[in-house]
């Protein structure tokens, strides 16, 4: 549970719409906390991880992420067809005198091997991605990379999250969207920062993201990036829904230029560090209050 110095607090940074600034926020928030609390950044956007481009971590460990897929012992198999009957993913098929497996469809549920009456099915690991972990300037870092051509991101995300420290603040960079990879990344967070931009696209996808985190019963707040473009409807929506706007970052060519070069906002313009520290404090207050504790 969260304590006053941020110990054990997990903050995820999500958005619905891609390209609103999740990585910019996650990296700058993590860097602003460094030296104040033990901090760790987990990049769960395993399809397109980008945080490492800004933090340039030293990778000390690389682990494969495997899912357990069936291998059939054809000497023991009697072609009864039970495995194909129980596999809802159509990853295994029994034809006369042969069993075909389509391993890229297998979710690794284990039903076929457990339920095989002849015990003819063993399991072996099939690599679908990797998790790299290490450190960046005193901060713990881990990210996942889904192998090209693989469809299933959630097992890689689960593996990244196994690296979460429970004795510091954990910042999670979440993939865009609202479906299973987002849910897998965000669930078990104490708080979710939703990054948006004040445009109809930003608002449309923010509404979806809010519905997602509400379904997961995770408190959230909004960070408006590129303020000054577009319209005022994001603010109107937040007010109507009672969602706090925690921080506003203006549309600024200097910020865009730093981002394009892979430089974090707080490294490029150090005065932003105070803003991110205050963002963290506001989040701490909300989480603490929700847990029934008094405001600091």
């Amino acid at each position, binding site marked *: 549970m969260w304590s006053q110095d941020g110990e054990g607090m997990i903050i995820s940074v999500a958005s*619905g*719409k*891609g*390209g*609103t600034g999740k*990585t910019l926020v996650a990296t700058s928030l993590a860097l602003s906390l460094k030296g104040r609390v033990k901090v760790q950044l987990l990049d769960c*956007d395993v*399809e*397109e991880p*980008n945080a490492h*481009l*800004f933090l340039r971590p030293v990778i000390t460990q690389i682990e494969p992420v495997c899912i*357990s897929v069936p291998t059939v012992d054809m000497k023991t198999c009697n072609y009864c067809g039970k495995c194909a009957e*129980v596999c*809802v*993913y159509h990853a295994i098929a029994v034809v006369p005198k042969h069993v075909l497996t389509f391993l890229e469809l297998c*979710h*690794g*549920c*284990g*039903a076929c091997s*457990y*339920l095989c009456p002849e015990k003819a099915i063993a399991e072996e690991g099939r690599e679908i991605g990797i998790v790299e972990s290490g450190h960046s300037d005193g901060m713990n870092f881990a990210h996942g990379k*889904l192998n*090209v*051509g*693989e*469809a*299933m*991101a959630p097992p890689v995300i689960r593996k990244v999250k196994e690296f979460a420290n429970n004795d510091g603040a954990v910042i999670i960079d979440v*993939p*865009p*969207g*609202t*479906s*299973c*990879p*987002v*849910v897998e990344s965000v*669930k078990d967070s104490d708080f979710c920062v939703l990054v948006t931009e004040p*445009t*109809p*696209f930003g608002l*449309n*996808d923010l509404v*979806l993201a809010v*519905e*997602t985190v509400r*379904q*997961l019963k995770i408190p959230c707040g909004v960070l408006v990036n590129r303020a000054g*473009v*577009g*319209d005022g409807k994001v603010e109107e929506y937040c007010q109507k829904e009672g969602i706090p706007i925690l921080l506003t970052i203006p549309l600024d*060519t200097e910020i*865009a*230029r730093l*981002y*394009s*070069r*892979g430089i974090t906002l707080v490294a490029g313009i150090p005065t932003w560090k105070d803003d991110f520290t205050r963002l963290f404090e506001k989040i701490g207050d909300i989480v603490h209050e929700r847990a029934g504790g008094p405001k600091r």
Partner: protein
Amino acid sequence: MKELVVLSGKGGTGKTSIVASFAALAQSKVLADCDVDAADLQLVLQPNMRVNHEFWSGQVAVIDEEKCTQCGLCQDLCRFGAINDFRVDPVSCEGCGFCFHICPDEAIIMKENMSGHWFVSDTKYGSLVHARLGIAQENSGKLVALVRQQARGIAEGDRLDYIISDGPPGIGCPVISSLSGADLALLVTEPTQSGIHDLERVLDVCRHFGIPALVCINKYDINEDNSREIEDYCLGQGLAVVAKIPFDNVFTEAIVNGVPVVEHGQDRVTKEIESLWHRISQALR
């Protein structure tokens, strides 16, 4: 009939603005929004919905409390950590049915799952097939496949020349589902370190599935060094950069006004996107 899919790897590079512009520029086409997680194309095409269908896909396990003897076998065997305290968390459940098969008390039933909606709409630019995946649902790849299949049906029925798809960000399940079997991918990138990194990954996915690709650099003038790096990279990969679109707030203004950017009147941007569409239609011949 030819199918173009617009992808980017990284989100927010301008896929939807470019697809909406193609909607205004291309003759004889059907539009498909394959970003079923966070569909935005309808915000600029002002659709009139003609068809609204539920999307049922997969199942979720439910435990009948009256029959359950709390033996715990399902909890021990579930690989997805979806069963705790003799209850199934529908968000974590992947619908594999393992628990249903092994429960000694037959206390688990598998329920069909309504995981979204799909629509066919009329727009002033032609038909749009789009969808909305339910919140926190799986099976986005199957819904994308359905959207494409419906778009193809319309294109065949009406003898249209093009299917133009707005793809999702990333490289995983819904991207693979948007891409497989398409005739051409347009990869929209931006001159940032993230944009370059993500372009390389999504290009690898195109190659993996044998889909030819062209590249468009959007907002090329926010970092011209990076734009040159992208051009050099593409040259090295034998990949054509078919457009360099300048950064202009007209993109955002067009979205706010709910119109494709080429109809919002900014010569420099409009001309570049017109030339982009011309080169794509040539490549699709």
